[in-house]
């Protein structure tokens, strides 16, 4: 007699269960496996005397296609798919944990780098993924416990640090998911395009090197942590760089670079536009080898928007990275300058990773969430010349106890505060022509024979003060002398030197000719994509010296004939 009631109850359940299923089905089986193993590991480690208080997994899937060509021929094409794990496991507590840097120890490497990344299954089999995550978690745990002991000893032995801020900030959890990005690349078409684009260089015997390289990547990042965050981001990147080198009669090698970037496959210029740029490069290279060598010089100069951008990135940008203010080995230039003027009052500086593009140019430093699961946001670094903020990761510093979404790293490194899209704005712009007139006035007033105009700077590389070789280098590639009568003369062999900070106080004016520089920046948390945007600037005093010159002679024999039978 109860049967009809029972049946109806079951029917009710059946009716509702599809909805339940839809909610419970994981959006992403990889994220689900990460979550499962993370929770499981945290649970298992609770039984140990020093359990972790924080754990995060980040899996980065990357498919990269590279095509390289030189002088009209193909050099290589590669197509690689990788999946890399980055893991952050902390024991101790937010105040003092296993990531605490040792003082006066230049050799200790962050754990992340010591262990490297294990091989992670590419397909989404949950069991295989979990085993890989398990292996890494075990390794990291052991090392973290060891390190915490060492940290505790180190802290006892040294004097109290100046900056007593905690090691890690507490941040809210976020759940966010982007669809997996489409990625398409016609390899054969690009091979041919790059051949065509580099072919014109071969017509000139003075040009010794000429290359074009396409890097097309799609990167999907999945981040899961013990605070409850689950984030998936997916973006394609398309980068093209064309570079060539000519050799002058005195042996000096003169390089030129041109880089392009887009988040869309059709965002790179078409062949006609590229060929036009190549022709301009050839003209400039041929002019450069005939140009006179620059003399050492101190005096007024204009930096184009690109050159200013690079300048600001290299010299200003690194000094506003948060954790440097806490690092007792660092110069900590701006540490005590919050709310004080550090730049002329007509300049403001922002770091804005939320921007995919500025005016018509796409920006390489865009991201939705940083590598510690913190949402990106526009940060006002300098307002009308006054320093307001540093770029912050989850490593607090005195006066700044929260992240502002700038914790970034390359796979295999621990995250640190890094730049994103650096934007320099001026409230007092004049036209480029006006700026040049102002330059000439300064030249005359200082009684100099000429001023300098830095049109382009070696791009694609970033230097910091560290040992990493290929870093942002403030090496100009196209420089002109500007004479008091307005005449401009190309010169070669110039290197920018001097104390850059004094240069900031000598920025006199800016123009309305803003330019964007897209590149990659290398520092302690590895290589990250960045951009720098700035207007042209007039600086009342910069110093240049002669560039070091190659001592190798030009080739002894003339170039070989282009076809057989003409020996």
């Amino acid at each position, binding site marked *: 007699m109860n049967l009809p009631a029972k049946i109806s109850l079951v029917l009710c359940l059946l009716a509702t269960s599809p909805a339940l299923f839809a909610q419970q089905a994981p959006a992403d089986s990889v994220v689900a496996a990460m979550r499962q*193993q993370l929770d*499981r*590991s945290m649970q*298992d*480690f609770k039984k*140990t005397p020093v359990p972790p208080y924080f754990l995060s997994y980040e899996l980065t899937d990357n*498919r990269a*296609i590279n095509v390289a060509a*030189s*002088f*009209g*021929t*193909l*050099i*290589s*094409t*590669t*197509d*690689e*798919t*990788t*999946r890399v794990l980055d893991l952050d496991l902390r024991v101790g507590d937010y105040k003092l944990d296993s990531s605490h840097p040792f003082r006066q120890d230049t050799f200790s490497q962050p754990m992340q780098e010591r*262990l*490297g990344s294990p*091989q*992670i*299954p*590419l*397909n989404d*089999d949950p*069991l*295989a*993924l*979990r*085993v*890989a995550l*398990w*292996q890494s*978690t*075990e*390794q990291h*745990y*052991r090392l973290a416990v060891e390190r915490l002991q060492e940290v505790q000893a180190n802290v006892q032995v040294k004097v109290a640090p100046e900056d007593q801020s905690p090691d890690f900030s507490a941040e809210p959890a976020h759940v966010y998911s982007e669809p997996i990005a489409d990625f398409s690349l016609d390899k054969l078409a690009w091979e041919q395009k790059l*051949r065509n684009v580099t072919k014109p260089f*071969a017509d000139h015997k003075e040009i*010794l090197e000429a290359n074009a390289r396409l890097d097309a990547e799609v990167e999907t990042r999945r981040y899961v942590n013990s605070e409850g965050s689950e984030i998936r981001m997916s973006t394609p990147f398309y980068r093209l760089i064309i570079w060539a080198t000519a050799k002058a009669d005195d042996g000096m090698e003169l390089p030129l670079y041109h880089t392009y970037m887009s988040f869309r496959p059709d965002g790179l210029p078409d062949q006609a536009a590229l060929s036009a740029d190549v022709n301009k490069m050839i003209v400039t290279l041929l002019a450069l080898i005939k140009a006179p060598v620059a003399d050492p010089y101190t005096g007024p100069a204009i930096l184009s928007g690109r050159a200013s951008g690079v300048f600001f990135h290299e010299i200003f940008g690194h000094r506003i990275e948060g954790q440097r203010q806490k690092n007792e080995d660092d110069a900590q230039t701006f540490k005590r300058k919050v709310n004080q003027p550090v730049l002329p009052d007509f300049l403001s500086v922002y770091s804005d990773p939320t921007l995919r593009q500025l005016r018509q140019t796409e920006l390489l430093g865009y991201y939705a969430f940083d590598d510690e699961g913190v949402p990106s946001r526009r940060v006002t670094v300098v307002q009308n010349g006054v320093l307001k903020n540093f770029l912050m990761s989850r490593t607090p510093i005195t006066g700044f106890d929260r992240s502002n979404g700038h914790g970034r790293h390359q796979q295999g490194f621990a995250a640190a505060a890094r730049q994103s899209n650096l934007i320099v704005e001026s409230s007092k712009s004049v036209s480029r022509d006006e700026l040049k007139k102002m330059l000439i006035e300064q030249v005359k007033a200082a009684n100099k024979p000429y001023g300098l105009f830095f049109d382009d700077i070696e791009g694609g590389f970033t230097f910091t003060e560290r040992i990493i070789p290929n870093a942002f280098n403030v090496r100009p590639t196209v420089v002109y002398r500007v004479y008091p009568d307005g005449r401009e003369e190309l010169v070669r062999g110039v290197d920018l030197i001097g104390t850059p900070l004094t240069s900031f106080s000598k920025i006199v004016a800016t123009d309305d000719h803003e330019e964007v520089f897209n590149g990659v920046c290398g520092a302690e948390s590895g290589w990250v994509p960045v951009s720098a945007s700035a207007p042209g600037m007039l600086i009342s005093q910069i110093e240049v010296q002669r560039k070091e010159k190659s001592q*190798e*002679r030009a*080739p*002894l*024999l003339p*170039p*070989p*004939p*282009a*076809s*057989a039978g003409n*020996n």
Partner: protein
Amino acid sequence: MAPKRRNARFKWLFGVVAILVAPFLQAQRPQDDVVMRAMQDELARSMSQLQLLQMDKPYFIAYRVQDVTVQEITATLGSLTSRTGSPTHNRILEVELRVGDYDLDNTNFFSERSLGGATMFGGIGQGSLDNNYAQIRRELWLATDMRYKRALEDLSAKRAALKGRSGGEKIPDFSKETPNSDANITPAPVLSHLDDLEATARDLSAAFRSAPEIYRSEVTIRYSDVYTRYVNSEGTRFTRSKPLIKLEVRAETQAPDGQPISDSFAVYASDPTALPSTDALLARVQRMSSLIVKLRSAASLDRYNGPVLFEGTAAAEIFLQQFGSRLATSRSPVSDNPQFEMMFSKMFERMGGASFQDKIGARVLPTFMSVRDNPAQTLFNSVALLGTSSVDDDGVKTRETVLIDHGIIKNLLAARVPVSGILQSTGSRRGWGPLPSNLFVTSGKTLSHDELKQELLRRAKERGLDYALIVRRAGAGSGASIMEMARQMASQQSGSPSIPEIYKLYSDGHEEPLRGVRISDIPVESFKEIVATGDPPALYSDELMPRVSSMLFMGFSFSSGSGLPVVSCVAPSLLFEELSLARSEGPFPPTPISPSPLAAK
């Protein structure tokens, strides 16, 4: 009607001519190879015109262009962990250039300036993949120019360093060899289908899913083909294709006391169809997996001094490990810094063991054993040998060389770099320097498998031992030992590696597997005390690292990514009168705190 008949005959003639010409058109003629043409033309121009002021002109130039195709697949627990979408292609250009003469030239010299310079690796560069005459010539032009300038600097520094030195044997820098202009010209190969390899890797790695006691496992399949074009100024010219597949399975775990237990095997073949069937490989994987699991609870031993039998492939393994690169010559360079010279000769001896150069005429094996190197043999018991080649990397014709005759060293393998007592090449240059190709260890005194075991037990009993030791797999990989060391350091393994398959053999015939017996170098002297050998011989192939001296001074013929040369060795089982084996030392890494996800299924 005369005109008609003439036409008909003409047509017939034309038809015949057409048929005769067709085969030539289809086969690739050397002169149709644009790359080879560019190489020959630039070589000719460089030899005749390249000269700086009044300085020495080159007396020898060689161009080696290698088209390297590589695809590497790795899988774990049924899933791929890395993938190259299609094989990677690279073209590597290499220039060898000599100034001076055969007796004294710029090579076999190490200058302090060489340290930390791109010039140390000078003469090697990446070339264009397109078969474009102009571009290949241009690349060779620039590389030759750089190499020539560097050679002049080196020769001048070398002459200065040698001035005032007297005495010592004057050994030429370069041997004179007969140019080989009729060497094979083989057309560039067409890539075969590789999709099946991904499936094989996944299937084999999935076998470990049912072994939660195994912490880490991986299957790697590497396919590479190096197509070499070579031409030199003496008139030698050849092309050669060298496809190679290496399939490797590795697994590691720990015993409950933390001692690492690991095992691996590698299979080589020259094309996918020559690999063992997936079923056969699977059986091998499963056998390895069960053995590792069994070893976790096996006993170890403290120390053993007594007879040891290396059975089957283990014998070829250790022979290759100990003798492999010692059977090749090695030359210490002159240096402008005398301390370097001394350091190098000491360093080379320590790395890879003393070469047998000082031991020509000495006995290194029992009088019933001989060793020869034979690059011409292609098969052993229907299995392909991996060292086979008709020319070496200098273009010198390969040939069989008797190395050890009735225990006594007669010859060593040499490339074109003479050493005291060995002034000519034996056609043995493989990559950086001379190496064996296919080694055959023969014995005039063999016992059957059972007789050998009995002999082993008899000798153990003679010493009052309850058991003897049998090694079926020696481990540590032969010459790839430096790579192995690096790999172990990278994987944070502490403690020294253990012999993967070793058993106690008791007089009643039963066997017990042992874990944690340290792999140590078997001293070369012990080989003289081999007392018996067993039938049938077994084949073992492995990558072999050339002697360090060749790496530095022959220039790096980098065939980037194609791996080290593979050497095949056929040897009978070897019964050693006495070897000393000990336990692998700790400290051992801690065991995992949480169970593997495989266990909680």
